[in-house]
């Protein structure tokens, strides 16, 4: 078993020996991780391994059964809602499904976090800000739409605009590029890089998209069956000796999964010959 020892001040956000289970399902089993300030940490791992749960611990949306979570050296997993508000305003959190408020328009969604913490007097400036944030994700002009009228990828991008509306110091992206076309994905990658470069933002990114991970990551952490099994920069992960890691990053199917599929042939017909496209 890999056991890392971290101290509360080892990073901007530190999770220490956390154990989390839902009923009988053990999701995180003694995970420790210190997230360095101003860097981009990417968390990878198979579906359902607890990446989202780990990320939610870092903003105290989920509380651990055991272990501690620290933000700037201060323990946050025991704070109540009101005390957490002070800390959460420094975060931007992009939910896996967007989690836009469907009773509010795109515009209202984006000003929501601002409205909650400031009294808005200068609406011109706010209009400008919303326009700018939406433009960053390529969604300017959709201000008056409602989330239910947007496609999944569009909702995701509006949600990202909302997450960065308050210019947070820490941004957590839960699968920012899932559901986007390859070009949009790369726009998001560039956005993450830009925010790090220009505003020194600390980013934590959960993703399945290895291309994106290699591009944006300062550090990649792999979670598997509730434990961290790999940790290092892109090159380290690319050449990792662990078979599970290797299999995951190359997207190779395992023997057991293959066996389950080995029924029936995969012959198919096409309507076109190769030469038709010449």
């Amino acid at each position: 078993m890999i056991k890392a020892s971290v101290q509360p001040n080892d990073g901007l956000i530190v999770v220490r020996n956390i154990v989390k289970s839902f009923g009988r399902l053990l999701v995180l089993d003694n995970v420790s991780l210190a997230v360095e300030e101003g860097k981009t940490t990417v968390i990878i791992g198979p579906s359902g391994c607890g990446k989202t749960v780990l990320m939610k611990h870092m903003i105290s949306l989920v509380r651990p059964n055991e272990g501690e979570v620290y933000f700037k050296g201060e323990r946050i997993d025991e704070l109540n809602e009101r005390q957490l508000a002070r800390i959460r305003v420094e975060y931007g959190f992009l939910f896996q499904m967007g989690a836009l408020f469907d009773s509010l328009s795109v515009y209202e969604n984006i000003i929501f976090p601002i409205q909650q913490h400031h009294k808005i007097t200068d609406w011109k400036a706010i209009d400008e800000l919303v326009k700018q944030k939406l433009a960053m994700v390529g969604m300017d002009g959709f201000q008056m739409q409602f989330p239910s009228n947007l496609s999944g990828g569009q909702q995701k991008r509006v949600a990202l605009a909302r997450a960065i509306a308050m210019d947070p110091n820490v941004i957590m992206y839960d699968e920012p590029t899932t559901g986007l076309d390859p070009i949009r994905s790369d726009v998001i990658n560039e956005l993450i890089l830009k925010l790090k470069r220009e505003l020194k933002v600390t980013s934590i990114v959960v993703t399945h998209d290895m291309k994106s991970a290699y591009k944006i990551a300062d550090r990649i952490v792999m979670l598997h069956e509730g434990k961290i099994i790999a940790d290092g920069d892109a090159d380290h992960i690319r050449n990792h000796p662990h078979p599970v890691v290797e299999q995951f990053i190359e997207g190779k199917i395992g023997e057991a999964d293959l066996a389950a599929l080995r029924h029936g042939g995969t012959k198919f017909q096409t309507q076109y010959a190769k030469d038709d496209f010449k």
Partner: protein
Amino acid sequence: MIHSIGVKTIDGVANLGRFAIFATRAHVVSLKSCFSPKSYSLIWAQMNIIGVHSVPVVMVTGAFVGMILALQAYGQLASMGLEEHLGVLINIAVVKELGPVLAAVMLAGRVGGALTAELGTMNVTEQIAAVESMGTDPVRYLVTPRLVACLLLTPVLIVFADLLGIAGGYFVSVIQFGINSRAYIDFSAQGVELWDLGTGIVKGFFFGGAIAMISCYKGFTCKEGAQGVGQACTEAFVGSFMTILGLNYVFAVVAKAIYSTFWPVQSLL
């Protein structure tokens, strides 16, 4: 068998405890936000949805209660020559019991169902977590406006139900059965006391609180998926309905005790 009964009991008690914590917190937060102008616009919006839009159904309910009481009771009283006392019977029944309870049940269906479905959907699509992640207390943002609106407006809606119940009874008695209007009103005025009307309206406060708390709690603890939301709505309605009936009984007992303590002379008469 015994094991499963035990597990169910413990679950039930734990759930009740969580509900109590939730309800206490909601009330404390609501009380606080009554003094912060920032939440007024949210409360106002909910009052519109919960209160104003419920007026028609509650009025229709009240009117039919009054009318049906008149229709059914007339025969009995007329056979004893007491038809002019019909007003007392109808109005006491409407103002004291049927108006408040039926209005509350209508609200549990109309408002409670919508509340649970809305909050439940927000819960399963992580919108509640999103509110939280932006440093806003979801209880303050989502529960408080709904609770305050229910608390303040259920009594008002009961007044509407009472009003229409009284009017409905009057129309059927006086116009359909030809009872002397003057006598009907005089007997009613003698028979119905301010106490009856008052207790009926005060009950609304408790019913409103119960509806809001149960519906919001069910929404907040809703299980995943469409089925989870559906189940939460059903549980919220059944829970609110039972609680309304239970509270109503408790309230009647308490009100009787208070009444006979403070109006001993009248109750002897």
